[in-house]
């Protein structure tokens, strides 16, 4: 089971109540991890509104998780 760091931004940071956390998960992919976290912490943003980044690279939802990965679920952006 991979030992991950998850970073939270914007709505997800508010809903999780944390900037970041380390966790060990049974999830094998980014999609499985988001579903686990969304259920546990009542994260409201649907998957289709998010982009996943692993180790500072945007990846597909079915990207596999590896030990030591940093995972971020990016809400719709609003810079500028």
């Amino acid at each position, binding site marked *: 089971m991979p030992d991950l760091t998850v970073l939270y931004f914007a709505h997800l940071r508010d809903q999780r109540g944390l900037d970041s956390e380390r966790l060990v998960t049974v999830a094998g992919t980014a999609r499985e991890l988001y579903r686990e976290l969304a259920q546990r912490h009542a994260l409201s943003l649907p998957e289709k509104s998010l982009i996943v980044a692993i180790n500072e690279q945007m990846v597909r939802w079915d990207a596999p998780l590896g030990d030591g990965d940093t995972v971020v679920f990016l809400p719709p*952006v609003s810079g500028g």
Partner: protein
Amino acid sequence: MDDFVITDLPIDVGAWRRRLDHPQAGGLVVFEGVVRDHHQGRAVHHLDYQGYAPLAVRTGLEILTEARGRWSLHNAIGCHRVGHLAIGEAAVWIGVAAAHRAEAFAACAWIMDAIKARLPVWKRDTWADGSTTWSHGTPPEPQE
């Protein structure tokens, strides 16, 4: 110096402008995005920006590199502020130097569109009544 920066300090627009100086550049176009006192009809007290800094820097640099590929530019640089911003403070600064003005205008406007669409940065309005709202935003484009 880095061509694209995420900073939690006030943007020194004079220093950024001086970095655009180039003896072959005839046209400089600068965009500044500034915190307004209203948004969607409501009075704004201040803004907070969060950014995923390492990915935002990389995305900003990629956008500037794409702009240099689309237009003939002598320079294209910029920065985005994060943290607490008061009314009138600059949230984003983009500067483009080109031989001619048409390229400089087109590139600067395109860079700003790309920044809005792709930079992993999030804006929260704090309204005059103290309540807060995260901006609706645009899902960032996957880059595969």
